[in-house]
């Protein structure tokens, strides 16, 4: 009978104890329906062959194939795939360990419409303790282009692995990233199991410890992502970033469509960096002076109380590119944005708060580039407070509505190991303080909700977009200052929270791009208690148990 799972392991000179732990972890699976295909990639340690032969002799589900010559991880994995007979292919490195329920949990996740599944994982330290769990988001294709956040434990349908050509040579060190990119391009469904099912051994020369050991792995990663972009029709250049294992996809613009910048304002002034500024004037001035994107139209929706001098300054600054729209009703952010959209000429709408200043000159290009990707309707930016700390890194809706990593250092990659601030990624929502959207998507969801004049209007807007099947992306490469007060306490209009809670109760408590193993009502990727790696302490030898056992033996003997 054909087994459901084929676990593939390429072996080359591991430490003996590590290999034995690896083999035992498969042998001890709670699900029995598996085969373990082990390729000995011409190990030179003589005991390797003995250990593998013994494993095969003790369990008929273990099959060992010995290569005559060392061919590397890709060749060995391809050999393993060639002899595998299972419906689902699972990848396990020769020194790593599966949780006892790994195959069982993955079997449940791989329903009829799921072709690829992955789980959370953690690191197995040299002292045997587990540490640094990776609590991952649900499938996030944009993020996968920026980093291989999936890594382990990966399971894919055999038919799909064959269809994408299996393991490809030339990507050693990033062969798993290359494979998972090709798999997810064609998968009908990708499932995420939010359980730590894989313990990735941290060895001195492992990529898990330092990139200095394997810089070529990340260079192979650049090629894997570039190839992926070419396959899916993204014209782009892929670059390494200062954060190891994180890539930047710089998209080529097919065209330079008109971008209508919609700015609601009262023409107010305030002090920033010790000087007084009229916010809306300086916001537009920074775009005109710094932005390298020239096809801009400025739609300023101003309250009737806006001083004439401000309007005159805007006319001088933006000239024919300025569209002034008077708003004479009580303040309603949503209504003002909707009105701005009506008067905009562009097919792309850049929603911008007036208390902003552009930092990265190519920000608009970055945002426009993302909207060239089918399925992406809204792209949000990285926003910094005036002191350079993070104001916006994407929204997190997990038992609260929060900005990710609020007030973290502006140049921080974010919490380890996933470093969400260093990569472009799908989000449940982004702030409308600096975000670009397709006009068609804006109109499709009816714009902003006028029932929410002050707060949560961008949350509702984003959730409507996602409910309509669109993706929302946050990028760290488009960057503005946002001079919002750090200490501002949102003044809720009556019924605002009730409105959002009633309409989106499930969505604001279950963020697919966060993780249920993380602490609720936070947005800094802090693990829930006892899930940060500490539980491994329980697996250490219990001195008291041994003492009690000896006493008992003495008493009964």
């Amino acid at each position, binding site marked *: 009978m054909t087994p459901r799972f084929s676990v593939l392991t390429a072996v080359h000179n591991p430490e003996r104890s590590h290999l034995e732990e690896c083999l035992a972890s498969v042998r001890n699976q709670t699900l029995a329906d598996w085969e373990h295909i082990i390729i000995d990639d011409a190990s030179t340690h003589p005991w390797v062959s003995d250990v593998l032969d013994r494993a095969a002799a003790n369990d008929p589900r273990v099959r060992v194939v010995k290569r005559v010559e060392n061919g590397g991880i890709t060749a060995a994995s391809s050999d393993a795939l060639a002899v595998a007979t299972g419906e689902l292919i699972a990848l396990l490195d020769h020194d790593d360990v599966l949780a006892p329920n790994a195959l069982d949990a993955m079997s449940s996740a791989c329903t009829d419409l799921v072709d690829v599944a992955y789980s959370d994982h953690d690191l197995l330290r040299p002292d045997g303790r587990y540490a640094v769990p990776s609590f991952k988001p649900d499938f996030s294709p944009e993020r996968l282009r920026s980093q291989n956040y999936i890594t382990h434990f990966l399971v894919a349908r055999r038919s799909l692995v064959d269809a994408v050509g299996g393991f490809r040579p030339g990507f050693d060190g990033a062969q798993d990233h290359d494979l998972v990119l090709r798999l997810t391009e064609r998968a009908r469904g990708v499932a995420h199991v939010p359980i730590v099912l894989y313990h990735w051994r941290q060895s001195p020369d492992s990529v898990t410890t330092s990139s200095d050991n394997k810089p070529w792995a990340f260079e192979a990663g650049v090629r894997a992502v570039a190839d992926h972009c070419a396959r899916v029709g993204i014209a782009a250049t892929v670059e390494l970033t200062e954060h190891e294992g994180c890539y930047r996809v710089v998209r080529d613009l097919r065209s330079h469509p008109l971008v209508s910048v919609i700015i609601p304002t009262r023409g107010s002034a305030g002090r920033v960096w010790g000087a007084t500024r009229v916010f809306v004037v300086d916001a537009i001035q920074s775009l005109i002076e710094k932005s390298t994107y020239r096809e801009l139209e400025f739609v300023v929706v101003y309250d009737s109380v806006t001083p004439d001098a401000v309007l005159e300054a805007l006319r001088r600054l933006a000239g024919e590119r300025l569209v002034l729209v008077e708003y004479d009703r009580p303040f309603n952010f949503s209504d003002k944005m909707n009105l701005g959209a009506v008067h905009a000429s562009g097919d792309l709408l850049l929603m911008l708060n007036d208390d902003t200043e552009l930092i990265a000159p190519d920000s608009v290009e970055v945002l426009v580039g993302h909207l060239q990707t089918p399925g992406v309707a809204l792209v949000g930016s990285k926003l910094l407070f005036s*002191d350079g700390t993070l104001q916006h890194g994407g929204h997190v809706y997990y038992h609260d509505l929060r900005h990710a990593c609020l007030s*973290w250092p502006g140049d921080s990659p974010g919490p380890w190991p996933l470093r969400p601030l260093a990569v472009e990624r799908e989000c449940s929502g982004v702030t409308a303080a600096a975000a670009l959207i397709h006009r068609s998507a804006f109109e499709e969801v009816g714009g902003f909700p006028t029932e929410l004049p002050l707060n949560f209007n961008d949350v509702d807007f984003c959730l409507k977009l996602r409910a309509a099947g669109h993706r929302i992306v946050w990028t760290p490469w488009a960057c503005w200052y946002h001079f919002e007060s750090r200490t501002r306490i949102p003044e809720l209009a009556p019924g605002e929270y009730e409105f959002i809670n009633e309409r989106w109760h499930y969505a604001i408590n279950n963020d697919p791009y966060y993780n249920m193993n993380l602490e609720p009502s936070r947005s800094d990727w802090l693990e829930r208690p*006892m899930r940060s790696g500490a539980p491994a*302490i329980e697996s250490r030898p219990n001195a008291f148990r041994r003492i009690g056992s000896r006493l008992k033996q003495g008493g009964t003997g």
Partner: protein
Amino acid sequence: MPEPRSDGDVAALQAEIDRLRTLVGPSEQSYVDLRVDLLAARDAAKGAEAGEGVYRGRVIELEVALARARQDQDHFQRAVFNTIRSGRHRIIRAVRSRLL
């Protein structure tokens, strides 16, 4: 073609120029200096605030690390407590079984 200004207009404009010169002082360079001073002061304030932001951001990061450490410490204490409690029971049972 611009309309010729009246003598009164010219006189008023000249008076305004004189007033502004009085404000500026003997050197018109003062305008430029003032602008340069303002920008330098703004940049200094920006730099100082950014320096403060570095520390503020670091504090936030450390707060998260502290929260994680407290969770781990709490877990460790529970683990040790449970170990001691179960160990104590085992020892008591073993001693009893020897004595009885």
